[in-house]
């Protein structure tokens, strides 16, 4: 993997890594101010090191889990080292086992790496779809999708009522209206899979990752089973 590829990985996953790091450090009041520093160290000592990203083997698990556990292990090691250094090289007050137990405690899920990751994936899919609609001169498809699906789901807005929608976009019959909205949903699903395909390989792995993200959300929404 080239240096430019590594930089792309950093650029793409920076938000999710930072969110997870803040979440991890929330249990260590002394280290909270160190999040930027720790993230830079992680990037330099891990991601930018030749061969490190190549350790992400699809046969051994998801790329998302690889990044997450790598950052977690790195933070555990760094805190231990810094703790020891503060005490002049004496044994750290916290042993590695203690640290790992502490860090593995229940996470505030809404702040977790997975939530940041999920938002990154969905944002990516929406951006791709908007761009694709603009390029193919189908901006009405994007606007219909926005007013019927995105704004209601993400902003709590009321969906644009059917009769207003068909009037606004000049849809002449229910067949045209249904076709437009169904096309929008299919486009989004295609772009969602394309974004996941940037870090998972093969149809099965892509499907499994989307299912895993749904399972993660189901945990946050007890009693809700996602389609």
């Amino acid at each position, binding site marked *: 993997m080239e240096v430019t590829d590594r930089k792309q990985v950093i650029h793409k996953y920076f938000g999710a890594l930072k969110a997870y790091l803040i979440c991890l450090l929330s249990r260590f009041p002394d280290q909270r101010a160190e999040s930027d520093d720790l993230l830079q160290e992680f990037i330099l000592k891990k991601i930018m090191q030749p061969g490190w990203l190549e350790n992400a083997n699809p046969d051994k698990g998801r790329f998302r889990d690889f990044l997450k556990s790598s950052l977690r292990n790195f933070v555990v090691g760094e805190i231990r080292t810094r703790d020891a250094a503060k005490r002049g090289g004496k044994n750290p007050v916290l042993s590695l086992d203690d640290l790992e137990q502490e860090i593995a405690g229940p996470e505030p899920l809404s702040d977790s790496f997975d939530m940041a990751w999920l938002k990154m994936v969905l944002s990516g899919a929406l951006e791709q779809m908007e761009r694709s609609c603009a390029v193919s001169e189908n901006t009405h498809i994007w606007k219909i999708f926005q007013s019927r699906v995105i704004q209601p789901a993400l902003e709590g807005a009321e969906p644009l009522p059917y009769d207003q929608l068909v009037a606004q976009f000049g849809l002449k019959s*229910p067949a045209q209206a249904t076709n437009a909205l169904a096309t929008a949903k299919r486009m989004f*699903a295609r772009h969602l899979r394309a974004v996941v395909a940037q870090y998972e390989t093969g149809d099965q792995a892509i499907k499994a990752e989307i299912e895993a993200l749904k399972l993660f959300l189901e945990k946050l929404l007890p009693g809700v089973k996602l389609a």
Partner: protein
Amino acid sequence: MFFSRPEGLARILSLDDDAGPLWDPAEMKAMWRHQLAAPLEADLGGMTVVNNAQSAALKSFAGKTFKDLLSHAEPPVALLELAKEFAKQTLKDSDDKQLKEIASALYYAAYAVALTRCGKSLGSLQGHHLVSGFSWGLERPWLDEPTKALLTVARKQVAGPH
């Protein structure tokens, strides 16, 4: 996106394989109104016209709507046939249940107009199949009153006074 609640994110994520309804069920009434107000060319323009009568009828109804056709005192049977074929094709090709319901209503409405005003059948459907189709339409809460009245007359005509 950053401030979105998990419920909203879940709705977006489940679009990946969402087979649920596209429209709110309460919007079926608006969909049917839209079907009636649709210009015939919008839906029938893409159909394969099989004979000269259909072609001539479509031209003579240029700029007219499905409502104009279904409420016409002497509608051209050829155009009713084309409307029925459009509905049948939608039922066959569409994956959307709500659009299929609208197509079914159009299908039986076209049959009912041909039977009651032209004394013709648009196809091979007869007897109890037609009666159950008209009854299905009458049970749709979103169907407008004039279409319900049409289906009621057609059902009576096919089923007989008893």
